[in-house]
């Protein structure tokens, strides 16, 4: 699978670890709940660590752990749920997270410009065919009226 990161299409090296799955090697993402439960064990993991959050999760729960995380995945169950836009802003501006923030799930290709402005720097569309489209939508506007992350 491929994704967009920092405006380039690259291969996705990350693996999704379900809450009931045994740990595997390599770069893995876990749910916020699993991270909070198994933090001690996961910190010994060989490979990079990422956490998946949804709209009802709180970025504040990760505030003290961000140094251990190379990826935070924003998992959109519904493009109309805008909470993750604020979560991304909080991760960047309030908690100064510098790693990858990736949009996944049911976001809209037409939302990538706004997502990039609130600090999302990677996009993994549900359909691989949307990669080129999303790359171009990142340039929908050359001007902006207000401060955000970017």
């Amino acid at each position, binding site marked *: 699978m491929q994704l967009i990161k920092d405006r380039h299409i690259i291969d996705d090296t990350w693996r999704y670890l379900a809450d009931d799955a045994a740990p595997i090697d390599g770069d893995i993402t876990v749910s916020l709940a699993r991270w909070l439960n198994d933090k001690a064990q996961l910190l010994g993991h060989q490979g990079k660590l990422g956490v998946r959050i949804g*709209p009802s999760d709180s970025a504040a729960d990760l505030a003290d752990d961000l140094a251990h995380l190379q990826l935070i995945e924003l998992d959109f169950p519904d*493009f*109309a*749920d*805008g*909470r993750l*836009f*604020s*979560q991304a*802003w909080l991760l960047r*501006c*309030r908690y100064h997270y510098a790693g990858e923030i990736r949009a996944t799930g049911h976001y*809209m*290709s*037409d*939302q990538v*410009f*706004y*997502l990039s*402005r*609130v600090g999302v720097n990677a996009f993994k569309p549900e359909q691989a065919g949307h990669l080129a489209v999303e790359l171009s939508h990142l340039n*929908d*506007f*050359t*001007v*902006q*009226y*207000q*401060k*955000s992350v970017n």
Partner: protein
Amino acid sequence: MIFRLQGTKTLTMYQYNDTDQTLVDERVAQFRRQTEQFLKGEITDDQFRALRLRNGLYIQTHAPMLRIAVPYGLLSSRQLRKIAHIARHYDKNYCHFTTRQNIQFNWPKLEQVPDILAELADVQMHAIQTSGNCIRNTTADHLAGICIDEIEDPRPYCEIIRQWSTLHPEFDYLPRKFKIAVSGALHDRAATQFHDIGLHLVNNDAGETGFRVLVGGGLGRTPIIGQVIKPYLEKKHLLSYLEAILRIYNLFGRRDNKYKARIKILVKESGLDNFADLVEQEWLLTRDAQELSAERIQAMKMQFVAFDYDADAGQDHSFAQYQQDQPKFATWIRHNTVAHKMAGYRAVFLSLKAPDVPPGDMTDAQLDAVADLADRYSFGQLRTTHRQNLIFADVKQADLYPLWQQLDALKLATPNIGTATDIICCPGLDFCSLANASSIGIAKEINEALDDMDYLHDIGDVKINMSGCMNGCAHQSVGHIGILGVDKKGTEWYQLTLGGSSENEAAIGDRLGPAVAKHEVTQAITTILDVYVKQRLDGESFLDMVKRVGIDPFKEQVYATH
């Protein structure tokens, strides 16, 4: 920037710079691409719905409806001519002015909407965020900058808010729509107590001017009066405080039920104090990074400087003479014009409530003619009001008589501003897919029943607001008399309320009794007005009498005759 127009006329309204123009042009290009993708089946109905709503486009009963933003109700004659042109070429030769100072077209073709938006961008207009769950057009006092009771002109702040809220990346997918209104006067003409955020320019004890911030007001299904969340906010913190409220709302507003998703429900369910604490904590963390500089405010104020008024305008004697000689003109002056802060000038209301015309509608020919009159008599500008009329804000008293004659010929001089036939009305069943009621037809019936101008003027200030459904687009719950269309087993019924007000003494109307049938509405209204005429005290207004006696005397008569 003061924009010179036709020699002596100047525009004192915000003029787009390169950034503003680029932004609307890029938005048009984006929507053109989105429309093409939708028509080719490349984006889903659901996705396109969200995208088109954020460009003002609804799909209605008969055709799409396009809502265009009129920022804080201010229009130039050039913009009005463009609206006339769009009405002629893309619609059925008319447009509709809404209760939030915007303009709607009822018959555009979906494929042509990108072209319409491009035409609008040519005259510094757009339809961005006029619907959808995002921050909507910021509205203001329609007498801003010219009224005698003003602390400070709210329009520079409205424009600052317009820019901040336009394409705000974090707040475009809120739980529900979000409306902001700003008033700078002692008398609240902007219904600020019924907005998600209401801002009042006020003076503090030190004599400085800042904002009193209200939150959680709103109409619709659950009308609630806004509460003061910050009694005094320094101007430099305006945007940071708005941002803090919006972030808390975006994160914690309910998303499980669209009827409980407005910020008013969040404020009510969490309690004002708890909500205010959350906002305060958020704001303290961000306010220093978002300060509005004094220079930015000053530069924006320069876009709204007063016109170059004629200091001798008050020397004219013809105005008094015409009023003496022409009782009809004097009546129009009394009802359709108001005082101006500059001696020798008045603000003129153009009534869009003529008998036989759906409230708030204008034809392309009227629009063009009004644009010409604005150039000739009112510095090339006009304003829209939330009661769906227009205003020429700066007319010399010597020009009022010829202006009246020309407005009369255009059927825009019905002397009914603020009276019972100045009805706020939604498009209803005739156009809207949500409506239960034919609001326009009822408004016409009431207008016909109250065709005696002397009677109408004797009744005086009565605000009738009529909505075709619970969504309350015509603000029926704050009408002195509210009329709400409800559906009972497929037939139209009408729920009446009395005693609402959207002004300083904000109130939500009390229900009169059981809903009445469609053919009984007009009689119920005339009965209510008759009770008032018979039982009022000397000089007592309708609203004051309702407050004094309650609804019972009205109820007895209305239901006695049915």
